[in-house]
Structure formats: structure tokens, C-alpha cells
């Protein structure tokens, strides 16, 4: 199976290329585009980006594994990431985790067909603690009740 950018990504790539003094700057944007296209970054996508940007696979692999937001394996449709850093912990992060467990039956680092639950470091939303990120959206000022309601919307 081989990988190529879809039309939209190819167009974005062409538009971004002249914006940077060196094409190597596009390593992160390309990894993002590949991830959006497939849901994760496959080995084929890595090969494709290597050729496109003329960088060694080892370098690309090093970069992709350094940053926590790149998935090198498929993940469930909904990724629940609960912020675990100090402000959120002080404001009741553990109650939110409990509510998630009651609602979807998953503890931290567990997953099923639909959900994956993780704890992550500070998401820069301390004023809205406790908070979680569901896929790419922030949900702030949570209570156990509102967390359950949020998840119920996606369970059905």
C-alpha cells in the first residue's frame, strides 16, 4: 500500500513551500497533514514525506516520536485527554477521571473501539480547570456531571 497526499494537502504543501527559507521546515506541517489524512502516521506516509522533503527516514522517525501529538498507530475515534498538571489537579481532575470511568468504563491509558483515555501535561487552560481535550476541542470548567453529559453526546 502506498501513500500520497490528497489534493487538499498537496495544495497546502505547494502554498506553504515558498513561505519557508528551507523545505526542511515543512517536516512538522507534513506530519500533521499525513495524520489528518489517515488518522495516524503510517510507515508508508513516513516514506512519502521522506522522499518529498529529502530527509532521512531516521530523522523523520526521530521527530515524529519526539512530539507527543503524533500517533504512529491507529487510535480510537475519540481521544479523551485529561489535563493532569497542578491547577487541574487542585481543582478536581481525579473526579473527572472517575466520571469518565463511570461513563465509558475506561481508566487512564485504557481504550475500547470508540474511546481512548489519557492523562496529559498542562494544556494551557488553567483558568478553566479542570479541563479535558476531546480530540482537538477544549472543554473547560468541567464537573463530573458535565463530563458525563459531554461523553453521552458522543456515545450515541
Amino acid at each position: 500500500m502506498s501513500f500520497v497526499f490528497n489534493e487538499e494537502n498537496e495544495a497546502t504543501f505547494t502554498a506553504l513551500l515558498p513561505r519557508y527559507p528551507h523545505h526542511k521546515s515543512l517536516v512538522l506541517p507534513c506530519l500533521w497533514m499525513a495524520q489528518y489524512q489517515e488518522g495516524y502516521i503510517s510507515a508508508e506516509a513516513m516514506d512519502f514525506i521522506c522522499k518529498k522533503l529529502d530527509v532521512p527516514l531516521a530523522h523523520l522517525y526521530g521527530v515524529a516520536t519526539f512530539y507527543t501529538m503524533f500517533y504512529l498507530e491507529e487510535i480510537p475515534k475519540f481521544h479523551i485527554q485529561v489535563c493532569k498538571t497542578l491547577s487541574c489537579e487542585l481543582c478536581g481532575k481525579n473526579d473527572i477521571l472517575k466520571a469518565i470511568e463511570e461513563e465509558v468504563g475506561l481508566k487512564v491509558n485504557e481504550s475500547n473501539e470508540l474511546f481512548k483515555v489519557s492523562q496529559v501535561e498542562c494544556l494551557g487552560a488553567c483558568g478553566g480547570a479542570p479541563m479535558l481535550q476531546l480530540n482537538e476541542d477544549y472543554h473547560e470548567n468541567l464537573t463530573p456531571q458535565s463530563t458525563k453529559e459531554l461523553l453521552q453526546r458522543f456515545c450515541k
Partner: protein
Amino acid sequence: MIQKIVSKNFNIENSHTLEVAKKNGAYQSIDRAFTLKPTDIEIEISKSGLRGKGGGGASAGAKWCLVSVTNEKSYLIVNADESEPGTFKDRQIMQYDPHLLIEGIILTCYAIHSHDAYIYVRGEYKFFADRLNEAIKEAYEDGILGQNVKDFGYRMDITVHRGAGAYICGEKSALVESLEGNRGHPRLKPHEPSPEYYFGKPALVNNVETIASVPFIINEGADAYKAFGTEKSPGTLLFGMSGHINNPGIYEMAFGESMQDFIDKIGGGIKNGKKLKAVIPGGASTPVLNAEEVKLAKLDYESMKEIGSALGTGGMIIMDEDTCMVGALKNLLSFYHHESCGQCTPCREGTAWVDGIIENILNNKGKEDDIDLLSDISKTMNGKTICVFAPAVSMVIDGFILRFRNEFETYIAKSKEAVDV
């Protein structure tokens, strides 16, 4: 106490759109700036005493000068990789007034003879990156950005670049490395003050809020800016409060206000009527203060240094009387353990060790000499690494042990009992 400069448009409906922003004075400074020479702008910024608002507090004018004197093709890189725990101010600017940031970028680029700016936004801030992109698109369509800025014959391009989840990329040289498509490993710093280099060309790296403060200074003049704050810390900062506080949020104030007043009057006091125990004053990497010190604390760079902490980013984490300080330190140390980039041994290994030791103490497996061991590791981590990450961890550990040693001792005494039984 509230003094709105950067946050003046935050409460206006649809303030992020070009139409509303223009009604409220956006892009007026551009007309004035392009009648001036670039050096005049730089001089005005130096005169205003504007200091970097990302945590370090270095003079912005001096930093700009390092880039502009090179006379080479140069770049502006705006640091929007806001990931210091307790800090959530730059996102407010990106959400509510992205055009203020764009205006600041144009002014800054003109001053340092640069035509290309990058905004490095942390990966998790998808919403804010999208909002910036919308604003930039509007500005291109309106002729504010592009080949010919407002018909002044100046080319200006801004590109939003998304990170992908690495705290260390907030460090400026790591940020540039990341922008170059590498792992976010900080670079060795030369002895002399020097700009960053992006693919070998000088680059200015400034925080979002610093750049967003520039339009006010150009519009109103350096003296108007200096009228706020203290002599050495002029102007305002977006101070934040989170944790056990009634009104968490971001509030813009001049430097030099009392921390206790800020917490009581604006923050509305501690949640559930409890007493204050401790405050981490400016993002997790600044030494914690106890309630007595908070009473004395004034919110400017010099005063905070005097009482043995630092102002940092101004994002305060407030802790009430029931907070377990050993637990709080464990939370922070596991953060640092996770976020160490792994380049220097004292940091990579040290953060793991201290995290493990504090976990043992929390689980009643602490040993008598654990506190000294923590201090010893902290000493070894300080000043022996490429960037300031490890020294920050070491300051955090020392701050907690200095002020709350008795809590650590109580835990260890409990562990001893558990063993004796």
C-alpha cells in the same frame, strides 16, 4: 488595579474580526510607523523599557537591536508555544484580538528589516491557530499583509506554524530547532548576547504578549507606556490566577501591584472561604511562596527576585490550606520528568530520579535522607545543562523544601512508623 492595554478589546463582541478590530483602532499605528525610520521604532521600544513577557523579562529593545545590526535577511518568530503550567495568557490575545498581534508583528518586522514572520503555536491550541489563520486571511484580503502593506511598498508575510506537543519548544532555541523541522532540542548559548539563527539567518524570537504591546507604544509613545508600572518594570502584564481561587482568569495590571490585593480584590479570595497556604507566582518553574511571603510580594521582576522567587509569566497557581505540598511537588516533578527533552544527562536522569524519590515519599516508602538526596540532585542539575529547564526544576525543588520542609519530614516519619510496625 486593572489597566487595559493589550486586553482593551477582549470584551467586545466579535473582537477577533477585522471589521470590529478596525473600528476599535486596529492598524492605525502602521500608518504612523511607515512615516518613521525603522531605527526610530527600535529607539521608541528601547525607551519604553518594554520587557519580554514570556517569563525571562529581558529587554525587548536590546534583543531587537541584536537582529537589526546584522544587516542580513532576518526573521521574526513569535513564540506562542504557551505551555508553562499556570500560564494561559497568550491564548486570550489569539482568541480575542488576533489583529493586535498581526499589527505588532508588522511593526516589529519593519523595525528589524524583516519581511517574514512565523507564529509558532503549540499543537494543542488548534482553535487558536485556526483563529489566527482566519485573521491573517482577512488581513491579506484587505491589503494589510502581502506584497504591498497598505500601499507602503513593504512586503510582509506571516505564517502560522503548529508545534506538536513539546513543552521544551517554548525555549527559544528549541523553538527555532523545531521550526527547522528537527526535534525540539535547545542549542548551546554563546557567551555574548546574540540573536537566534533560523537556517543560519538572524531571527528575533519574542512572546505573543510582547509583540502585542508594541502597537500601544507606537501609537501613544514610550512615555505613555512608562507611566504604568515601576521604574525597572514599566508597563503592564496579563496576570493569571488558577487553582483554589474564586475568580480564576486573566487580568491585565501594571507591574508593582501587591500580590495579596490581587488575590483578595480581583481573585475574590480563596475558594470555600479557606486560608491561603502557598502561591506559585509565575508559572510552575518559579519558586513557591508561602502565605507570609505573599503578603509582602509586589508583582514586578525586581521585587519578586528580592523575596526569593521570580515573576516569570505572571500565571499564579493558588493553593489553599488543605493542599498537600508533597503531592503538589510530585505533580510538578512528574511534569518535568515527562517534558525533559533528554538531551543533557543531568536533566534527563535527574528529573526521573527526583520524580521517583518523591513518589516513594508519598507512598510512605520515604527514607530519612531523602530530603538531603533531593537537595543534592537539585544541586547537580543546576547550571550543568544546555538550557534553563534543569535549573528551573532545581529552583522548584529547593523552593518547596525550603518553605515546607516539615511536611516532607512528616511524610518520612510516617514511612518510618510503617516500617517499624
